[in-house]
C-alpha cells in the first residue's frame, strides 16, 4: 500500500501553493482542492474596526501540529479516497491580501469528496487547532474571538 503524504505545520514562511501541491501529488492523483484563508483589509465584521492594518497570529505550535494531524486523520476517515493532505498555518504579523492558512486535499478524481474534505479541514481547524489572531487597526488591537468549545476526545 502506498503511504499517503500528510503535511501539517505552523510556519512563519510565505505559503507556497505550488510546492505544497507538488508535495501531496501522487502518480494516481487527478484532482486537488486547495483552500486558503487570507487577511482581509476591509472587514466590516461586527464590533471590529472596518480597516485592518495587519493580523498578528500566534499558535501553541506542538499542540497545533498534533491537532492538524488529528484533522487529517478525521478527513481520511470520512473521505477514504483522499490521497495527500496538507494543513499549514502561517503565524506572525500578516498584512491584508496575504494567505494565512492552507488546507489542500488530493484524490484520483474530483467527484469523490476533495472539495468537501478541504471544506471540512478548514472548519475543523477553526474549531480545535490552537491558533489565535489579533486584529490591529489604527483604532487599536482586538483579539478575534473563537466560537467553539472542544468536547472530551477532541
Amino acid at each position, binding site marked *: 500500500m502506498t503511504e499517503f503524504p500528510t503535511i501539517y505545520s505552523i510556519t512563519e514562511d510565505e505559503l507556497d501553493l505550488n510546492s505544497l501541491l507538488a508535495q501531496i501529488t501522487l502518480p494516481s492523483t487527478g484532482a486537488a482542492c486547495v483552500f486558503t484563508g487570507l487577511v482581509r483589509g476591509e472587514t466590516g465584521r461586527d464590533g471590529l474596526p472596518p480597516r485592518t492594518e495587519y493580523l498578528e497570529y500566534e499558535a501553541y505550535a506542538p*499542540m497545533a501540529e498534533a491537532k492538524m494531524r488529528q484533522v487529517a486523520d478525521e478527513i481520511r476517515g470520512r473521505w477514504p479516497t483522499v490521497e495527500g493532505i496538507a494543513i499549514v498555518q502561517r503565524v506572525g504579523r500578516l498584512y491584508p491580501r496575504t494567505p494565512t492558512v492552507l488546507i489542500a486535499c488530493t484524490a484520483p478524481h474530483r467527484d469523490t469528496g476533495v472539495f468537501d474534505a478541504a471544506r471540512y479541514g478548514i472548519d475543523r481547524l477553526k474549531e480545535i487547532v490552537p491558533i489565535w489572531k489579533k486584529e490591529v487597526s489604527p483604532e487599536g488591537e482586538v*483579539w478575534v474571538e473563537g466560537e467553539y468549545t472542544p468536547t472530551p476526545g477532541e
Partner: protein
Amino acid sequence: MNEITVLFFATMRDRIGERGITLEVPEESRVRDLKRILAERYPGAAEAIGITLVSINREYAFDEDLIPAGAEVAMFPQVSGG
C-alpha cells in the same frame, strides 16, 4: 507534590502577564484544583481562568481530569485561527 508547567496563550497570556510558569501542585490534583490555585495567585484573571480552555500534554482537558506529574498544561481562549 508534582511539578508541572502551565503555558498561557492569547488573551490568557495578556491577563496573566506571563507566557508560562512552573509550579508545584498536590498529587492527584485535577484541572479544577489547578484553576483554583491560579485564581488565587492571579486574582485579576480569576474570571478568565474560570472559563479558559485547558490542555494537558497537548490534548484538551476538562475540570475533572487528573494532572499527571510533569504535565505540560496550557490555558487559552477559544481558537480563532485560519
